[in-house]
């Protein structure tokens, strides 16, 4: 696009002729137009020199990416058909008819397993337990979003989004933050302070893997934690179930949370149980925290 505009500008338009007349005399003073590339990345650089309104020499560098469109093989007949006049009801089609619309919704080919890019992420949180033995193997694992090697939990950009529903002592994050800079410098970090190891210190810590938390709404009033556990246990090890209870009435508020040890299990549970009829109601099962993507 940018290149096209630049090219157009270099062409002299008759409307601009008069204005440019005084510049024209000096045009030979300018270095010639230079085109570099496109290189293997498709980046093309165009360097032009010009006098601006004030008479100063200006160097204009336009960088554009040249993308080769796959040459669609279109048959001659198909090209011909393209210009066929409309017929039947299509003749009287007014512009406002809007028979053809592009979906406003982005539809993805939903994989039964997480696709490649997210698979890694899933592995990071899913393998948490298996990594306990070699906790030092991957040091930088964010506890909040489960990303490996990207940032420390304290610096997690999604930290605010994934607030734990219960109160935790602020002890862990602060000590973590203190340990973080030390670790990057290569100083010794006690194993107990390593973020990777922290997962294994206690079950309450593991709870904080918000990523594996699943929110269940549209529960019937009779549903209690054990029922949820019963329902979700089939998908994999569950660390916590919680049903919101109204403080005053003591009745269920109709939603709850289930935390899974592994992300895959949670994903399967969502896929299977979302829309599942439970106690005459249709369950709504989704990720509890807003997801990273």
């Amino acid at each position: 696009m940018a290149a096209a505009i630049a090219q157009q500008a270099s062409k002299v338009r008759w409307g601009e002729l008069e204005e440019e007349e005084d510049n024209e005399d000096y045009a030979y003073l300018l270095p010639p137009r230079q085109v570099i590339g496109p290189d293997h990345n498709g980046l093309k650089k165009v360097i032009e020199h010009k006098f601006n309104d004030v008479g100063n020499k200006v160097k204009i560098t336009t960088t554009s990416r040249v993308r080769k469109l796959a040459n669609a093989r279109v048959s001659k007949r198909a090209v011909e058909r393209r210009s066929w006049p409309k017929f039947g009801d299509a003749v009287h089609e007014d512009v406002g008819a809007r028979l053809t619309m592009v979906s406003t919704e982005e539809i993805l080919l939903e994989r039964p397993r997480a696709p490649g890019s997210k698979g890694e992420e899933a592995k990071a949180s899913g393998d948490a337990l298996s990594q306990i033995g070699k906790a030092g193997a991957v040091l930088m694992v964010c506890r909040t979003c489960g990303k490996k090697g990207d940032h420390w939990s304290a610096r997690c950009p999604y930290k605010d989004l994934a607030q734990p529903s219960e109160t935790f002592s602020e002890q862990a994050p602060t000590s973590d933050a203190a340990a973080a800079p030390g670790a990057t410098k290569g100083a010794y970090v006690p194993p107990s302070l390593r973020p990777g190891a922290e997962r294994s210190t206690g079950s309450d810590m593991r709870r904080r893997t918000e990523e594996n938390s699943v929110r269940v709404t549209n529960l019937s009033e009779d549903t209690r934690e054990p029922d949820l556990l019963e329902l979700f246990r089939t998908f994999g090890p569950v660390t916590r179930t919680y049903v919101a209870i109204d403080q005053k009435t003591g009745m269920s508020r109709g939603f709850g949370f289930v935390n899974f040890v592994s992300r895959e299990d949670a994903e399967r549970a969502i896929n299977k149980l979302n829309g599942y009829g439970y106690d005459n109601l249709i369950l709504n099962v989704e990720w509890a925290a807003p997801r990273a993507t």
Partner: protein
Amino acid sequence: MRPILMKGHERPLTFLKYNRDGDLLFSCAKDHTPTVWFADNGERLGTYRGHNGAVWCCDVSRDSKRLITASADQTAKLWDVQKGAELFTFKFDSPAKSVDLGVGDKLVVITTDPFMGLPSAIHVKRISGDPSEQSDESVLTIKGPQGRINRAVWGPLNRTIISAGEDAVVRIWDSETGKLLLESDKETGHKKTITSLAKSSDGSHFLTGSLDKSAKLWDIRSLELIKTYKTERPVNAVTLSPVLDHVVLGGGQDASSVTTTDHRAGKFEAKFYHKILEEEIGGVKGHFGPINALAFNPDGKSFSSGGEDGYVRLHHFDQDYFNIRI
């Protein structure tokens, strides 16, 4: 990907067909007007007016000049693709359910439903190059299978006709004599009505979808069962990717129970399966009702689905789709 939604039909879609070049998409619905669209941007090119009943099926000649449609108004009509003009009407005594042009576009197989005491039948007609010389006469009529024949297509070199329908049996007939050559096994075959049948692009095998919630891949010559794809919904439509080893199944719960349940429970996605591994690759959501029709663009880069909701959704694949690894 952002699918293109085409709302040209007022009633549920019944069938979708791309022409050979993949630039035109023909759609049939239970309203009376088959429609042709540009397959790249979804613009409507025209409609074929003249039928007086639901249109069940269509086929387009290899040169994209002739269209033939089968309708519940007990006719099959031959159309000029470009002008939308009706060229000829084949009259039957019962609703026509499916059409398929043979190699060379000289022969067409049309199936008719059981109706008013008449049994279902498979008719073979000759298509003449000049529409003014077109005759209504059947070259061959095959009767025998009980119940509706939902689909009949030509076998290799037009030597056989493959039919499938409500009796859940796939049959291969001799197209010369009308003799039954092969029949699918009751044990391994489908258990319920076969709703759809699609040939692979090379014509060596074909896929059938059935209300027994499975789709089966068969050898077109020996009728040997090659693969079975199990799903959790009745299958209304099937198609095969011409470039990748993918099969697509569409369906969903019965149209009559759609309003009583959550749309997520209806499983109205088009499901992609790996043809060889029989493993699910993914699903494409979008329809608000069961999918009745599926078609793959011959270039394999896009596919369209037609639903009970009256929409045709045209999906151009993202690059990611072609990089999927199992």
